[in-house]
């Protein structure tokens, strides 16, 4: 019995001394699962090369990460939010309302979004119009707005094989979804001329027409994937007709299982994205809480290390993993070094 008592009291003492003495000494990061691999590569290298502990990087999606980021200032909130899209004005407002007023936006580079299917299946050469016609809830046929009637790809575009339409697209909590909607579905809607028809049908309301374009069909031809790309890959492996939306880096790590489709005739690669010829790409960001710099040890150093040439530059480990490095990286380095916040001209 005395041994148990001893252990119990030792444990209590340990807990209390720890909770009073321990100021958090490692950087906490959360957010986009697209940025997660890059952030963890940097975190690992940071832990190796500096005397600070290795930062903790969680995923969960851009929106979820920014929501946690905006919860407030203090040791029990995260320091950095990763995002595969830019922060929205509404999120900045929520942040400000919770006391997170000074946010530093850091663009780390670009990432391509690719369309890939099973390695042994049919090859596709897509255009945004094809994706819009295949997946939008309402499309224009013979001048009238109707529910999407297509079930196979050859109905969408006679050049395609008669493969059933089955798409796995990122769920709405992913930043990738927004890029997919804006740069593929909406672009296809506008390119096909359907946008004008919808605008007229909706009393010239541009916003409503955009919304109508990007509303995806809900009859099971388009499936939202709320998990990570591994889940999309698993869906494609079990359904060989499926075509999934992936990040370029994920595809490049699974080239033995996936074949990639071209978009508007361009094969996705870090080169074609850097040149700007591949149409579907987006910048990746992380956001730093300025109030935490100087309080959480290593935060400023971590941010500077993240955008340093040897990490985020064209020959760094991030580019090797699949990030398209930012040609204006030196500007980003200035933003971090001078701690320029959003709204003060960054």
């Amino acid at each position: 019995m005395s041994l148990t008592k001893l252990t119990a009291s030792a444990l209590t003492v340990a807990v209390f001394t720890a909770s009073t003495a321990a100021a958090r000494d490692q950087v906490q990061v959360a957010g986009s699962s697209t940025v997660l691999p890059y952030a963890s590569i940097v975190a690992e290298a940071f832990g190796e090369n500096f005397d600070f502990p290795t930062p903790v990087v969680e995923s969960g999606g851009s929106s979820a990460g920014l929501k946690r980021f905006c919860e407030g200032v203090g040791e029990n909130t995260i320091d950095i939010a990763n995002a595969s899209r830019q922060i929205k004005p509404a999120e900045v407002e929520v942040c400000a309302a919770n006391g997170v007023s000074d946010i530093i936006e850091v663009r780390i580079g670009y990432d391509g979004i690719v369309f890939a299917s099973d390695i042994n299946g049919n090859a596709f050469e897509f255009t945004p119009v094809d994706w819009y016609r295949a997946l939008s809830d309402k499309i224009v046929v013979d001048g009238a707005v109707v529910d999407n009637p297509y079930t196979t790809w050859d109905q969408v575009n006679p050049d395609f094989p008669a493969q059933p339409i089955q798409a796995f697209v990122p769920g709405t909590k992913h930043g990738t979804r927004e890029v997919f909607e804006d740069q593929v579905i909406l672009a296809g809607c506008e390119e096909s001329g359907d946008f004008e028809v919808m605008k007229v049908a909706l009393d010239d309301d541009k916003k409503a027409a955009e919304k109508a374009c990007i509303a995806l069909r809900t009859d099971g031809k388009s499936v939202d994937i709320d998990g990570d790309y591994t889940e999309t890959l698993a869906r494609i492996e079990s359904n060989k007709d499926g075509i999934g939306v992936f990040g370029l880096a994920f595809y490049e790590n699974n080239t033995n299982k996936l074949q990639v489709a071209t978009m508007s005739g361009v094969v996705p690669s870090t080169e074609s994205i850097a040149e700007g010829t591949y149409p579907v790409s987006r910048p990746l960001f992380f956001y730093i809480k300025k109030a935490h710099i100087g309080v959480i040890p290593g935060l400023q150093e971590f941010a500077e290390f993240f955008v340093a040439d040897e990490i985020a530059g064209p020959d760094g480990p991030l580019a090797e993993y699949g990030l398209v490095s930012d040609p204006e990286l030196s500007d980003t380095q200035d933003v971090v070094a001078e701690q320029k916040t959003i709204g003060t001209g960054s």
Partner: protein
Amino acid sequence: MTDMADTARHKGSLLVQDARTVKRNRAEARFKMYGIAAITIGMLMLAILLVTIIGRGAGAFQQTFITLDVPLLEDKLDKNGNRDLADIKKVSTFGYAPLMRTAFEEKVAAIGIETKLSGKDMANLLSKDAAATLRDFVLSDPSQIGQTVSFTFLAQSRVDGYLKDRVDRDNIANDKNISAEQLDLVDALIEAGSIEKKFNLSFITGADASDARPEAAGMGVSMIGSFFMMLVVLALALPIGVAASIYLEEFAPKNWITDIIEVNISNLAAVPSIVFGILGLAVFINYMHLPNSAPLVGGLVLTLMTLPTIIISTRASLKSVPPSIRDAALGVGASKMQSVFHHVLPLAAPGILTGTIIGLAQALGETAPLLLIGMVGFIASNPPDSIAEGLMSPNSAMPAQIYEWAKRADPAFYERAWGGIIILLVFLITMNAIAVLLRRRFERRW
């Protein structure tokens, strides 16, 4: 009705079963068949599960290593030549890359392999972890600068996959991490004995690694995280649970209040574990300001989850102690408390321990509540130095680590996720076996 001719055919008993008995016996035989079929299906599923897990995960315990003699060049590592640790620390892991290139070029030249690959392409066969290994070595013993030291480095995941038949020459056409020429070099180095596959201890003892180096990832640190969480659960759930059950079972009056408590305890045992995670986030992190990702918080959340299990099993084992024991103790003049602590509790102890161990095993395999308190993610901290640090510094847990690996892009992580499951299963089987043994050894039947 049977006649005499029919009965004459019976060789054994003369008893003639009537139609209803035959029907009843058939029903019994059918029921036995169903039972055997159910067990067979269960065993078959278990066999499939185990074969899949071991088949896919066993590879994680083996890793490909490359042996190299690395010249620790002074002009790269210590330009001032004064062996000052602060100066040597300024050379980051990127500064060690040229050493690896030189080492590889020398190695290939020494063996006499013809290859068109550049030094950089050759060094790419090594894990990104190699530079870190080298840097740690130099920092721990700066006097070695200037010497040539033989190292055994991890090979990168594609090379490892090639030796494990995960990667073959047919499907690397689009793979930018490995080329056919590099595989030719790998073949030649295997021939020369510089590349070999062997047991990988660091998978069991090491920390998580980033997506760029799956070959370096290990379970060790998350195992420590799980250990500290279990420590918290044991230290809190056992005394609280046992005290609550003793009071409820032996002292509390039986009225509607205790009935409500009883119903609620049973309900709590059935609450989905993610709910405890949300509760933990709200109470322990947002209100009590305990740190994110700390095993202490994880342990507290799992304590809440395990408490009902422990209370229910403790009450059951207290109930199974016959009233005659209590009566006898009270009869010879023991107080109520003496009768409980001197007689009832020791007799119920084996059952309590069994329930606790099973509760702990359940908590050990739990991931969902940890998602919300920040214990799932890339957490590659060093093993903690003290109990306080172990409780407070960020860590993951075994099931969370498995979940994390299963999500990652590189197929090498997939293998490690299965390997992690093997380790977790070994722990669970051990704990459950201890529970069974304790029960066998100490249980008394009345």
